[in-house]
């Protein structure tokens, strides 16, 4: 506790206080008799401007403001996984136990439980020299994840003492070090990091390995890299949250940090109820064991909404530093930008576009730049992939947040209102979306999934593009007048849309192994090429279109991948049937010419 100032004005989440000369910028404070948490965002002589992370009703002028002596920070240590925190890192499970169903104000609870007991295995011994970022002990955090206690960045030295193997409490010191200048340093089990400061890394690497998502349209057409950044914009109800949930469930990251930023309470509850019973498709363990949730719902205070993004990314960096691949979902970054706008408005700052402050693009860039594939200080590889939802007003992608976000991301999954309305899900537009990672990850895909990955992907995208112009003609004059080769393109495109791109999130098709996706694509493109050849030789399209095998092909995604033979079987039958049609045609043409 330190010096105290006094509240001189209250305007929504923004306070002014005087007598603040000894406080520092970005310092946390406790404001008023209710001891509400806030952060200093401007200092001007004796006066400070404070944004308050809790509802300010009832605050009075003259009440005290007390400094906490540290900036807004997140506790880092075992116990993060499986937990849910609010925007400033308060544990919501503990808060529920202590305060009941409604979030109350001015509550002081440690972010991580200092009394929880953990099974610690030391990695070094007395006399070893360790540097910042190297693991010094491991903790079995969940059955899925081994937690590595790292020497904090900037700390190094010779180990003077280290905990013996066995159970220890979160509040304990794991090791004591003596640094080069003879000072004693400690490595705590639970450390703390200021959330607005990025954790350091040794080197940034090219993100050349895909983050597999089990979503066909993503893995097949618009892939994301481990360490990549992607935005998913769309009007209300187009599928941002469902897509983010899908990625949180099925992507092959080691750790998932899910930030509900200014969105619905029920969506967080859904994750809390579902993830503990859903199995990770790779390990068979409950998905909750690799997940951390940050929830600042739309009715929680806006300043904490602004902070939630940083709390989340700090946790992500912490696990990255252990050498893990982390996927971070932020739903929605627009609400974060709007929180910035609201605070900025209350400060009377001069707005740039649509009321947003001029520093909006800088803040967006700073956030996305905390992603990446890196060599950690400890010398291992780790990555953070960010998937940010954007909620443009009226679904209009030209608004500032979408526009600026596009400058700093490399993968864009545009959600299309029209597709969503006709219940084509995921409503990721194949015309407006792009991924710059396609070229970076193709070597990996060709080596690990299918050698034809690139060519199938290119072919499918070309077909869909061709189909878009054909559809414009169809809308004007109908399909009947088109030549057969164009009808065929439309037919294959419709197969692709119905049987490949669409993927229901709530049934057995929710997760599609990359090989299965490619197998479906392969049969569809194979059908197209063969049919195209037949049409060029004068065969009409109608007998091909009536094949029962095509109905089966459109439903192929329903088959589980545990029997890949079924896919080969359909492929064989389809080819056989097409060859028969070709022969029948030749035969009738032959008999026809006899009659002539």
């Amino acid at each position, binding site marked *: 506790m330190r010096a105290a100032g006094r509240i001189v004005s209250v305007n929504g989440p923004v306070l002014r206080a005087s007598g603040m000369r000894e406080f520092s910028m970005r310092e946390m404070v406790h404001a008023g008799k209710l001891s509400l948490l806030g952060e200093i965002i401007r200092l001007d002589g004796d006066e400070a401007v404070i944004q308050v992370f809790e509802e300010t009703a009832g605050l009075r002028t003259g009440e005290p403001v007390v400094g906490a002596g540290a900036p807004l920070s997140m506790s880092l240590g075992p116990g993060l996984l499986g937990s849910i925190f609010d925007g400033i890192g308060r544990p919501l499970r503990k808060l529920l136990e202590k305060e009941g169903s409604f979030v109350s104000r001015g509550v002081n609870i440690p972010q991580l439980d200092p009394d929880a007991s953990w099974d610690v295995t030391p990695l070094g011994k007395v006399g070893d020299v360790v540097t910042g970022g190297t693991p010094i002990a491991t903790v079995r955090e969940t059955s899925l994840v081994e937690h590595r206690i790292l020497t904090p960045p900037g700390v190094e030295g010779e180990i003077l003492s280290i905990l013996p193997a066995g159970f220890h409490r979160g509040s304990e010191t794991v090791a004591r070090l003596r640094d080069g200048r003879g000072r004693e340093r400690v490595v705590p089990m639970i450390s703390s990091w200021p959330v607005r400061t990025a954790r350091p890394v040794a080197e940034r690497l090219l993100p050349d390995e895909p983050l597999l998502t089990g979503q066909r349209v993503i893995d097949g057409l618009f892939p994301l890299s481990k360490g990549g950044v992607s935005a998913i914009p769309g009007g209300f109800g187009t599928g941002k949250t469902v897509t983010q949930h899908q990625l949180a469930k099925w992507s092959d990251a080691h750790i998932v940090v899910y930030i509900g930023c200014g969105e619905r309470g029920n969506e967080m509850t859904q994750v809390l109820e579902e993830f503990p019973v859903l199995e990770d498709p790779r390990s068979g363990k409950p998905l909750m064991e690799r997940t951390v949730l940050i929830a600042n719902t739309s009715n929680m205070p806006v300043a904490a909404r602004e902070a939630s993004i940083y709390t989340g990314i700090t946790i992500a960096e912490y696990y990255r530093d252990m050498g893990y691949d982390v996927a971070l979902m932020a739903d929605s970054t627009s609400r974060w930008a709007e929180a910035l706008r609201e605070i900025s408005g209350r400060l009377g700052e001069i707005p740039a576009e649509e009321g947003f402050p001029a520093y909006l693009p800088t803040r967006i860039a700073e956030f996305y730049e905390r992603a990446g594939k890196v060599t950690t200080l400890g010398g291992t590889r780790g990555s953070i992939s960010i998937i940010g939802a954007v909620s443009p007003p009226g679904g209009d992608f030209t608004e500032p947040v979408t526009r600026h976000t596009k400058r700093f991301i490399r993968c864009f999954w545009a959600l299309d209102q029209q597709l969503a309305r006709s219940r084509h899900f995921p409503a990721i537009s194949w015309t407006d979306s792009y991924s710059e990672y396609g070229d970076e990850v193709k070597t990996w895909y060709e080596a690990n999934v299918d050698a034809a990955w690139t060519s199938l992907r290119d072919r499918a995208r070309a077909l869909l593009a061709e189909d878009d112009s054909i559809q414009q003609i169809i809308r004007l004059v109908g399909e009947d007048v088109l030549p057969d080769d164009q009808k065929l393109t*439309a037919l294959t495109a419709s197969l692709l849309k119905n049987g490949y791109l669409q993927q229901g999130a709530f049934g057995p098709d929710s997760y599609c192994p990359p090989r299965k996706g490619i197998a479906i694509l392969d049969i569809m493109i194979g059908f197209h090429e063969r049919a195209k050849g037949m049409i060029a030789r004068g065969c009409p399209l109608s007998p091909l279109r009536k094949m029962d095998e095509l109905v089966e092909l459109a439903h192929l995604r329903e088959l589980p991948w545990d029997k890949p033979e079924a896919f080969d079987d359909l492929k064989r039958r389809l080819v056989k049937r097409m060859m028969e049609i070709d022969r029948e045609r030749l035969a009738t043409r032959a008999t026809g010419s006899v009659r002539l």
Partner: protein
Amino acid sequence: MSTEYVGVNSISGPFLMLGGIPHAGYDEIVEVRSQDGTSRTGRVVLVSEKATLVQVFAGTEGLSPAGTSVRFTGRELEIALSPAMLGRTFSGLGEPLDDCGPVLGGVRRPVGGAAINPMGREYPRDFISTGVSSIDVLLTLIRGQKLPIFSGNGLPHNALAVQIATQSKLAGAENFAVVFAGIGIKHDDAAYFRDRLTAGGHGGNLVLFLNLADDPPVERIATPRLALTTAEYLAFDLGMHVLVIMTDMTSYCEALRELSVAKGEVPSRKGYPSYLYSDLASLYERAGVLRNGRGSVTQIPILTMPNDDITHPIPDLTGFITEGQIVLSRDLEARRIYPPVEILPSLSRLMKDGIGKGYTRDDHPNLAGQLFASYSRVHEVRALASVVGADELGKADQASLAFGDAFERGFLSQGAAENREIGQSLDMGWELLSKLPVQELSHLSMEDLERFIKKGSGADDAGAQARP
């Protein structure tokens, strides 16, 4: 702590400006007394050492700077809650409008409402049968959901809201209540709701809060909060299942804009304050089911879309917060189809977890998906038919047109008092789909095709049509 200050510095719009008042609380409620002794309620919206800004709910008409006195109560806006509220009618500020006097006993709660801890929620899964086919099958309402009606002036949103409220399978239950918040509504509409909702002896389960069109707009800020605080009390203290109807949210947002402009705040889209999203969320998020509670709060807010524009900030921000929306269509209404639910832009986000096996019927999810997809194709075919003529269409397109008409006339359309069982509605859906070629039914599984789509029902001969 109730100090009274005589005289104010200035009066402007709905605001009184006082000098710095030591210990004035942000959001505190004050009692404003005019020189003739009548009193009204106000709220502190800005405090600083030099000035205190008070917003007067009933407006500042008739107040004079010298003759006005202000008493600080030290409390936020509160409401007295008790089971005796059931069957009562209150003003938009919570004063009794009937002759039964004030609500006695019970508890007092601030109307602001704290956020529900997401950890304390239970994910809503219980299906509410409304007896309306389009809603039950395609936009299923779930207990604890917030599902607004996006309407326009002159559309039958009131009739639909009443039909839902009275036919809900919850309605029969003893522990069911309706809380109605009329926000800037016409006298006729208020009378309509009161009559219909009390018909059939449900009057004892109804609480009305009425801020009418000619009541002070500033009061509208309070009305939905009073209603929701009451609903939370009935649900989470008394264990009732509460349906909250709030209408018209457009009037609420306009009142908010009026205040914001009067305060001189920097406006955002269309002059609405930049905190409109957060403000609406502070209302809509007050729906749900608690893990440690018995009751539930289900919300059906009604809003009229200015110029029928769904991208207008009011419907747009609402859609970003609520769990779906029921959109009414002027075009269907013109063709005398009731309820004129335009299903394609409509959505129920919670339906996925409240339908299917163990909830409604196992065939429900795929059927709904296919009906949406097929009906969306109807619109394309209709557009094409208007260009080339219906006679020029292929067989599959013809089938699609026939499906569209049958869907609108038979499935969407029903009587304002017609209560259809969910099973009946689902069967109607299958009947409609069986008229379409199998190639068109890609949202169904192979298994559904075997089970529900009888072979040879005019489906085989039509060629597959390639269209999204």
